[in-house]
């Protein structure tokens, strides 16, 4: 979403108010430098000790708004997840789920999968983010690591089309089985139907100027 025409579908800059610019820049978080603060330094140290390939597997570490995000390479995701769960210094027993985010402008990194993990033992949270290209949207399934990931991965497959290799039964879960397309992708329209009432027609939601 590099360019958004704002609420009223205006052309040009359209900003007559000075309230704000109407063109949004694509967002890309920069890598954070140590010290990360909070328990994040300890956590990163523990992971580095437990996982010799840390520097190879972790693309960047982002600390933002008091939350720690590790950007992991897709090929290493399963290893990192296993260590995060099993290492006694880390002990992320809870894989709370996976969520997709679609960034159509990030070439070859269009589809992101975001995992939220929780450690009851240490009362800590961490987020893993993995990017895969839309042309080859394959990620290892983490159902073996956290059984509860099962439905979350199915939902992410359903909504974004990310294929989790090794999932026991990767089928659609919310949409009907014969549905075409993946509704949460940015190029998938909101849809809806126009409604006529007393001669006046209200356009379908995706056709309304304020939603374009």
């Amino acid at each position, binding site marked *: *979403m590099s360019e*958004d025409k*704002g*609420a009223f579908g205006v052309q040009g800059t359209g900003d007559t*108010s000075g*309230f*704000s610019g109407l063109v*949004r*820049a*694509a*967002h890309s*978080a920069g890598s954070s430098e140590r010290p990360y603060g909070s328990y994040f330094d300890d956590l990163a140290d523990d992971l580095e000790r437990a996982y010799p390939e840390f520097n190879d597997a972790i693309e960047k570490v982002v600390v*933002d*708004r*008091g*939350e720690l*995000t590790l950007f992991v390479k897709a090929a290493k995701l399963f290893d990192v997840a296993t260590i995060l769960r099993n290492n006694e210094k880390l002990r992320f*027993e*809870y*894989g*709370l*789920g996976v*969520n997709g*985010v*679609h960034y159509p402008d990030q070439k070859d990194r269009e589809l992101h999968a*975001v995992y*939220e993990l*929780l450690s*009851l033992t240490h*009362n800590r*949270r961490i*987020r893993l983010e993995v990017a895969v290209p839309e042309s080859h949207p394959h990620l290892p399934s983490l159902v073996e690591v*956290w*059984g*509860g*990931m*099962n*439905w*979350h991965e199915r*939902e992410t497959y359903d909504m974004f089309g990310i294929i989790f290799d090794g999932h026991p039964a990767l089928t*659609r*879960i*919310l*949409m*009907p089985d014969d549905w075409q397309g993946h*509704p*949460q992708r940015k190029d998938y329209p*909101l849809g809806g139907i126009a409604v006529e009432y007393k001669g006046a027609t209200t356009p379908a*939601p*995706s056709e309304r100027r*304020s*939603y374009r």
Partner: protein
Amino acid sequence: MSTYADPYASSRETTEGRVYSVTGGDWDALATEIGATKEERVVVNMGPQHPSTHGVLRLILELEGETVTEARCGIGYLHTGIEKNTEYRTWTQGVTFVTRMDYLAPIFNEVAYCLGVEKLLGITNDIPERASVIRVLMMELNRISSHMVALGTGALELGALSPMIFAFRERELVLDLFEMISGLRMNMAYVRPGGVAQDIPAGGVAKIRETVAQLRTNFKDNEKLLIGNTIWMKRTQHIGYLDLAGCTTLGITGPVLRSAGLAWDLRKTQPYCGYENYDFDVVTANSCDVYGRFLVRMGELEQSLRIIEQACDKLDRLEGQPVMVADKKIAWPSQLSVGADGMGNSLNHIREIMGESMEALIHHFKLVTEGFRVPAGQVYTAVESPRGETGVHLVSDGGTRPYRVHFREPSFNNLQATAAMSEGGMVADIIAAVASIDPVMGGVDR
């Protein structure tokens, strides 16, 4: 009388009339044959339109006699695309959508969402204390009304009608309070980014105190009916067993986890909205079964009442303080009031923007139509809803509308435990197991 002679049932005349002896046939051979074929199975489709499945939940059961050998859930019948829709509305309008996800716990959806938006905005510490106290008050009232449905419908599904009547009587008292405070009984969109939509009306706190006393008395009715009741215990004890290891594997939170003996409650372990300033206990049970979950929910009712009482005291102390963040670039400009016909615009506010201040009108218009901008980034916030951890993953690209809103719904996650809880048990116990998870399909399917 027919003279037709049935080849498999010979008959003879007796003083009481004709008596048939059913014999013959090949029943023995048939039974042996069925027993020899391993693939032979009965698959029963239960729901989605079924009075005992807690909403439009479809259960696909593989049975051997009355024993369940496999249970699978089919969901998605209530999928409404709420997450997609929020991407087309302002951050404030999002509240109106997310409140409709888990429709029995709307306040928790709103609070989780608003805490996320506030974290993105970086105004978490600027939320007025009175607003946080009102949020806590509303959440705990909501926990009571939600648990009441869980207990009432759970009992009803097992054939106990009276507990449902009592539970809905109690729930009604809480919904009356919601109506008094927000103007709406359900799906209130009362919690807004920056605070809450409006202050508690005059005399509201006294009414809440009255209701709390009433509820405390009323809860005893259901306690007397169910706790220790032989039939109830036979239907719920050792049923739907899921121990701590099972909960951890499946990511189960909430009363189901606490029924396995672990006192994990986000209100204690990762407090938000000032929960660390309230005195309450985390209720647990050790039985890992439906009865344990029932006891946990019953115990949580009393704890919620305790929190509400403390919140009322705090509200008295904070009388007259603001309920919305001071930053006018974020605070919702429209003022609401509850009139005789429900909630509507405050006439004072209308007078100001229409008759007195052009700038106020412009400000109102811009903020209501376009909304405020939220700095780019992503956050995850979680609250302890009646069903477990309700988490919100919000992504902003810096615009006036969310880039992505995702709810980690405890109902959705916990429903995965259906198979683990009910396989190997009787088919009738599936109802008890599902009811003890207390899934709300609006939350499961979103």
